[in-house]
């Protein structure tokens, strides 16, 4: 008989209108790294919430070390040694690393904190697993990768033996991802059992021993990673074969649509410019990508381009018209569509219904209102049409509150809205962030279709695969400057990496200019 630490047998969990988990079985062996793979909305989060006692399943049992247990709330889960690193960290920014680690189980004597022992334990753990964490640093001062290691330490400090990682690589740079993979392997080697939730196939192939696949709430099976391929995993997850390379023909660039001249943006964090002297152009019928490691000025540049933040100097032209300093509304209505980086903060009013979100930039147009009164039936029709065309799934159709929709469908809604609006330029920032391969494939196809129909596309992406697959030209941004322009067909990943890390830059010619 196999040695399972945790078994979730025949779990069924329903919500009104949806069966989130339908007879799912997940068995975690001691000391293995077990990947849980599935599209957005496949039921991964629900299953983990069941394991954590946040939801009570209608059917099914959970066994720990072969004995049936009842997990009624997160405290039960903690008592069983289950710990989780959430996608969004649960850390107090203004506390030190040590304070965050002991938070919730503070060692004390006569009501006074006794941190010395805790510190010893933390340092020992940090040493053992090579986590390289400074216990006295403030959370707000350390990198995201380090913060994640603090979360890992938190679990280790509590002697958890079952560690759950919820999409841990979404926020990390490629180097940090490599480090994390190593840490996970070390942990498993020390006998910890790891459940690794993700939809990135490369990572599964790199680190996991076995992989369980969910699709639309159903259990598709568990495979040994060593004896499977990426293609097989993805077709199990999506239910059909997925192309990893984007099908596209050679770009046929036409007239210039966007021209950016010497744009500078002040940083909110330090006295240097966040964006410094950036110049480039985007022509109709091509996809230009700004690549770079997160935090090198891409976000600030797009904010300034769209008018969400101010430009300190420089000029922006759209179809030859100077639109520097024009309002966001003007840009919205004069040919720029924008898929924003942060769909929750900018892209959607989460407490609005789907139909209300679909007209977010257009509610005042005659199509949707007359004499300042909204035309609800037009809204409904429009929303239903987009939902149908772009396969946006939601519990109650057009009236679904967007907050209750899955991340993937939220993103699809934004993409649908932005692509349907009249535009000449599409600014797409991380358009596939947090999406699964199936949805990524669809969005990539739509972007290529846009290009072929003569739209200019400015893509900003942190995903190297996306950058290489989708773009016709790549501009690399490093510390607020464009340090190189490369052709995706000629450049290697290694070379791109050198540009991205600032080790290489084009100096002779003015980077970014097409002529």
């Amino acid at each position, binding site marked *: 008989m196999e040695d399972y630490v945790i078994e979730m047998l025949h779990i069924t969990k329903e919500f009104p209108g949806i069966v989130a988990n339908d007879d799912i079985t997940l068995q975690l062996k001691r000391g293995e790294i077990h990947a849980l793979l599935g599209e957005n909305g496949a039921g991964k989060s629900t299953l983990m919430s069941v394991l954590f006692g946040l939801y009570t399943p209608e059917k099914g049992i959970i066994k720990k070390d072969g004995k049936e247990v009842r997990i009624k709330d997160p405290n039960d889960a903690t008592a069983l040694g289950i710990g989780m690193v959430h996608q969004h960290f649960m850390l107090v920014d203004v506390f030190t690393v040590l304070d965050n680690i002991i938070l919730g189980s503070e060692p004390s004597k006569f009501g006074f904190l006794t941190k010395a022992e805790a510190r010893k334990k933390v340092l020992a753990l940090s040493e053992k697993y090579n986590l390289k964490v400074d216990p006295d640093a403030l959370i707000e001062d350390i990198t995201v990768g380090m913060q994640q290691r603090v979360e890992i330490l938190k679990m280790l400090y509590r002697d958890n033996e079952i560690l759950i990682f919820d999409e841990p690589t979404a926020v990390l740079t490629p180097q940090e991802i490599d480090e994390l993979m190593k840490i996970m392997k070390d942990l498993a080697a020390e006998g910890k059992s790891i459940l690794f939730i993700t939809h990135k196939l490369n990572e599964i192939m790199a680190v996991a021993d076995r992989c369980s696949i969910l699709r*639309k709430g159903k259990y598709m099976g568990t495979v040994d990673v060593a004896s499977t391929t990426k293609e097989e995993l993805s077709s199990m997850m999506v239910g059909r074969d997925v192309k990893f390379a984007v099908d596209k023909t050679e770009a046929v660039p036409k007239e210039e649509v966007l021209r950016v001249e010497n744009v500078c943006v002040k940083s909110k964090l330090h006295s240097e410019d966040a964006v410094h002297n950036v110049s480039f152009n985007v022509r109709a019928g091509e996809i230009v990508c700004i690549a770079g490691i997160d935090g090198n000025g891409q976000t600030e540049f797009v904010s300034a381009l*769209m008018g969400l933040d101010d430009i300190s100097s420089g000029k922006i032209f759209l179809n030859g018209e100077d639109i520097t300093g024009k309002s966001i509304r003007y840009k919205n209505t004069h040919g720029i569509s*924008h898929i924003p980086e942060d769909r929750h903060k900018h892209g959607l009013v989460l407490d*609005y219904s789907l139909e209300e979100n679909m007209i977010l930039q257009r509610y005042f147009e005659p199509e949707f209102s007359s004499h*300042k009164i909204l035309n609800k039936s037009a809204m409904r029709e429009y929303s239903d049409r987009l939902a149908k065309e772009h396969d946006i799934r939601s519990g109650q159709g057009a009236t679904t509150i967007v907050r209750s929709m899955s991340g993937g469908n939220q993103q699809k809604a934004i993409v649908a809205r932005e692509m349907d609006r009249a535009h000449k330029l599409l600014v797409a920032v991380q358009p596939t962030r947090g999406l699964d391969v199936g949805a990524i494939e669809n969005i990539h196809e739509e972007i290529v279709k846009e290009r072929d129909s003569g739209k200019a596309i400015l893509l900003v992406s942190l995903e190297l695969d996306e950058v290489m697959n989708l773009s016709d030209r790549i501009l690399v941004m490093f510390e607020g400057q464009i340090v190189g322009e490369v052709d995706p067909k000629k450049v290697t990943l290694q070379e791109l990496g050198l540009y991205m890390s600032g080790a290489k830059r084009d100096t002779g010619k003015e980077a970014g200019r097409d002529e």
Partner: protein
Amino acid sequence: MNNKNLFGKPGFQTLLASVLCAIFGIILGLIILLLMNPQHAFEGMYAILRNFFKYSNNSTNLMYYMGSTLVKSVPVILCAEAILFAYKTGLFNIGAAGQYTVGIIASLYTGIALKWNWFLCILAAVLAAALWGFICGFFKAYFNVNEVIAGIMLNWIALYICNIILGSPVCMNQTKSETYNVSAPSMLPGFLRGLFGNNNYMTIAIPITIVVAIAISFVINKTTFGYELKATGHSKDAAKYAGMNAKRNIILSLVISGAIAGLAASLYYLTGIEHYKISSSVPQMGFSGIAVAFLGGLNPIGAIFAGLFVEYITLGGQYLNTNYYNPQVADLMIAIIIYLCGFVLFFKNILNRRIIAKSRISREGGVMK
């Protein structure tokens, strides 16, 4: 699937939660009466709840007192409308009390000292209170001063200005230390006075209140302006992304909220039902409005019923036998009910959870949508 279930509808849940709050408040009130004087508690509660129906054998009196309740509900309903309107934009207009006070100043000064026509008096009150709202909104929009802080300070500024202006000899009868009667042209025209036992305080304030509530409901739910306001309220960043002018919306929202509060003051004081007395505290009305807004489920029409209920209970306190109960007991009870109003959302959440739990049990093998 949920639509078939009445309990699943948010509107109905809010209504149910509000009713539950009211019932809990009454039960708690009864417990207090029991603690103070167990013998007469039920009798006391009965007197409060029976209220003006005590006069049911005399229809003239009955209608008269019912009319007075209506008249006194007007300001609290309108203050609630003011608060919920701002709330839709994500603003907590605790400054409604100050805007209401400014409305008192403008309506009574124009009504007593200047003897303007009633219509102009209302207009003066609305404009003055709108200005008060504007100050709050301006600081919020351009300097990011929290509207609660600015509102509270403006409340006190309004109060002392009010005491100075209305305390002056042109407005205040120094011997009675209350304002003179509102001049005849400034009094609001009557409304169905005959029906309500010749109650002279019955004025067009009542239909105006209903019209205003409907108008607010319309603006919030049907217009592009309401759509913008709510979007700004839910997410300032998304509103900005969509190209909406968040600063303008914040200011407009507080200006309109202030205007409604000013209207509340004028529609109350220009009936002559109450004279202004020098006070050392900001009028309660603006704060009661908060409770009424929540009790009404932040719905403009719901606020009408919530306002009527709160006023009904408040006035019911007068029917308590003061031999057995300290007159403050009624106030205490109202305070408890108002306090419970804050729990409407809480009750709603509980209801929601129960409903989800039930639907889980009742349905087997649902389908994936």
